[in-house]
């Protein structure tokens, strides 16, 4: 193999390959030398350069000049500054990667800041609410408060009661189904602002089986739908509508008054 067979860039670097290995300070040069070592003419070039350098080192240096160079290293590189460090491509890449990781952590933290036991199920049910058509529910026109008895009598679902805040609403339909995690979910369709109610078992501690409690009403949202959740007697109640938190707030505020 000949040096001429290397790429132009590698040939150029190999032709000025430093005589001492410790003077090789970059990856491109190291790569070029590694390739060039496979060629005979580079081996001859290195022998030539070493011989010339050996001859150069025999040149006597007058003592009055030699004393100026008391140390071996006559070249001091520029001091490492923050600016140089910041411009290093490796440092820039590390900084970007750390920035992205930190961004993901912050996003995850903010996303789950208002989480509560059962918030995952509530978000999933908001998705169900957005895709539900009224015809898949059994038509039941009554007061929402009456549905608790229906769910208990017909489906043996204890404590599936609509809270007093939403008890006066008139229903259009209802159904009970098993969601993707096997939870028995009751869904109620209302005349009021196409609102929907969901009743589902509260989240429980995996080890003790104890209900993970939380107090008051908690908001949850998903793709333009907003819900407000309350847990009572091991059952969560979710009132959902298409809109924002401010659209649901009056119902909760009314109850507090």
């Amino acid at each position, binding site marked *: 193999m000949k040096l001429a067979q290397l790429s132009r860039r590698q040939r150029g670097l190999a032709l000025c390959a430093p005589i001492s290995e410790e003077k090789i300070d970059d990856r491109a040069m190291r790569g070029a030398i590694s390739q060039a070592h496979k060629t005979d003419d580079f081996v001859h070039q290195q022998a030539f350069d070493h011989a010339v350098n050996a001859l150069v080192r025999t040149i006597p240096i007058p003592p009055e000049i030699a004393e100026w160079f008391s140390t071996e290293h006559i070249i001091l*590189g520029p001091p490492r500054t923050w600016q140089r460090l910041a411009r290093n491509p490796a440092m820039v890449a590390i900084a970007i990667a750390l920035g992205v990781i930190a961004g993901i952590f912050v996003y995850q933290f903010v996303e789950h800041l208002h989480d509560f036991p059962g918030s995952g199920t509530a978000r999933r049910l908001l998705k169900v609410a957005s895709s539900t058509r009224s015809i898949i529910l059994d038509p039941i026109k009554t007061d929402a408060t009456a549905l608790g008895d229906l769910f208990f009598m017909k489906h043996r679902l204890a404590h599936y009661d609509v809270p007093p805040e939403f008890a006066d609403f008139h229903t259009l339909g209802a159904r009970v189904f098993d969601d993707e995690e096997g939870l028995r979910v009751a869904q109620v369709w209302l005349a009021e602002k196409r609102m929907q109610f969901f009743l589902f078992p509260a989240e429980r501690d995996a080890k003790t089986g104890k209900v993970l409690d939380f107090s008051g009403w908690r908001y949850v949202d998903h793709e333009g739908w907003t819900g407000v959740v309350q847990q009572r007697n091991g059952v969560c109640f979710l009132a959902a509508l298409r809109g924002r938190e401010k659209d649901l707030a009056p119902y909760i505020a009314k109850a507090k008054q």
Partner: protein
Amino acid sequence: MMGDARKAQDVFHATLREAAERAVNSEAPRDPFWLFRAARDRCLEASEQGLQAEDVDLEEQEVAPWAASQIERLDANQLAIWISGAPDPQRTALALFYLDEFSHHDLLALTELTPDELAKAISNGRQQFQGWLNTTVPHTEL
């Protein structure tokens, strides 16, 4: 660079004097290669005075496998004179390269040449020196 120890010494002292004067006037150069640049400039300036090397096209020959043994037969002054006779920037490139004190990046910064120009200067220098070696200390005579 000079091919003459006494002239080189003069250049060295003149450069040091300038560095000292700059330091006294709080104008110490921040460029780590300043000393080498200044010395190179003084060498080139000094070379323009006195006898000039003949401008001839040196024959270029492939670096021979036995080149090292040819070089061992030389005197350091012969090498110094040969390099000092080379045209600049080839002379600067060869002198700094064979000092073996600089990395590739340092050489590019010092000579102010592009990577291709530096490679060409050093490579041609090698081949011309090999041509000169073949004439001065032919392999058959070893």
